[in-house]
Structures are given as structure tokens and as C-alpha cells.
């Protein structure tokens, strides 16, 4: 085990997956996100709301063929926070192969 500075908003598995999925994208539709994560509408809404409250995700509403659709995208601060979180995970993952970077007293 190692002490880590992890972003608690992003670290939850579903929210981590949402951020990872949105990283290469400009926008993704709610239904696409739901299908990729394989979760219910309510679970996805809950996680997206938490990311929105942290300022990491923004929404846009649009109508296609008379149907209301919602699009989600990562904000600039969301991309920055996710990138920092992944860097920290990478650092922790490398601890075993490089014990010197653990930082714990010997």
C-alpha cells in the first residue's frame, strides 16, 4: 500500500470510466455513455451530476427528430484533473517495479 493523492471525485470506478471515455471525444450522447458503461440511466445521471458539480463535465441539450437528447463533454478543468489522476495512478502502479519511488521510510 502507498499513500496517494487521488482525486476522490474521479476515483470512483464509474466516474473514472466516464472521464476516460470522454477524453478523446468532443461530446458523447447520454445513451452512448450508458451503453458503454453498461449502467442504468439513474446510476449514470448520479455520477454525471457529481462530475458536473465538480466542474469536470458540461452538458448540452439538443433535439434530433423531435427527441430530446443530452450530450456530455469534459471541461478543461475536467481534462486537467483526469490527467493528474491518471499520472498519480501510474506512479502508484510503478511502485512495485521501482521500489525507490515508494517514498516510505526503510
Amino acid at each position, binding site marked *: 500500500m502507498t499513500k*496517494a*493523492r487521488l482525486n476522490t471525485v474521479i476515483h470512483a470506478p464509474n466516474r473514472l470510466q466516464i472521464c476516460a471515455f470522454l477524453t478523446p471525444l468532443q461530446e458523447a450522447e447520454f445513451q452512448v455513455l450508458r451503453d458503454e458503461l453498461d449502467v442504468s440511466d439513474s446510476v449514470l445521471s448520479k455520477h454525471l451530476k457529481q462530475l458536473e458539480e465538480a466542474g469536470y463535465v458540461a452538458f448540452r441539450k439538443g433535439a434530433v427528430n423531435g427527441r430530446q437528447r443530452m450530450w456530455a463533454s469534459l471541461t478543461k478543468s475536467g481534462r486537467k484533473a483526469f490527467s493528474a489522476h491518471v499520472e498519480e495512478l501510474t506512479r502508484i502502479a510503478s511502485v512495485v517495479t521501482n521500489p525507490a519511488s515508494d517514498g516510505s521510510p526503510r
Partner: protein
Amino acid sequence: MNENENLSADEAREALESVTKMESAGWRRAVPKRWFGAAMATLIGSMFGVYALQDPYPYIVFPIIGIALLIASSRETVGAYGRDFPDSKANKWMLVLFAAILLVVFFGSIFIRRTYDAAWVSVVTGLLVGLTVFLASEHERRAYIAKAGGGQE
């Protein structure tokens, strides 16, 4: 937001694996369609080629409207699409350079067409620009497929 947490290397690796998997899924969803690149190449090429006409101004509006409609309609139907501007500075500069070259070619071809009354210059420029845009779109498509883990050709 940040908090000290105990996390094992295995847990971190597991989280990173899920990140890689979902990022690949994002790239896979965003792979541009080949028809989109071909349509965009045709419309941009025709923006250049239309100057072969004696009075091109009533017609120049059609490819511009076409491009706007193409982007809007494809985005609303695909469910997810790639970023408008690249992440890296090098790629951003590449885009700026490409746009600058297109502008120079655009005004250069109009100048030559008017000075020498050579309609073929606009036709050839339109064809070359269209081909370049199509090849660039294919290059982008392959880059998306590679990042998605391949297997979409």
C-alpha cells in the same frame, strides 16, 4: 478534491486498465466515417473549383452551406465524435499551417484564374485540394482506428 488514500499497485494497475479500455472505446466511437471525409473533400474542393465559372459568387454559398449542414447532421446522428481541435501543440500548429496553405492556394488560384483568364487553374486546384482533404481525412481515420486498438478497416 484530493485526498490521501491507501491504494495498492495492483489496484492502481486495475484502474489504469479500465482507463485504457474506456479510452479505446471512446476512440472507437469517434472513428470518422469514410463517406464523411469524401463528402467534406468534395465540398471543400468545389469551393475552389467554383471559381472556374465566369460569375462564381452566387454559387460559392452552396459548398459553404453544405459543409455546415454536413457537420451538423453527422454530429447529431453519430452519438459521439472526436475533438474539434487536437490536444498537442504540434498538431495545433499543423492545423494552422494547413489552413494557411489552403488560404494561400485559394487566393493564389483566384488571382491566376483572373489574371490569365485560365478557368482550368480553378478546376485543377479544386481537384487537388479535394484529394488532399480526402487523404488528410483518411490519415485521421487511421489514427483513430489505431488508438481504438485497430480492427475497424
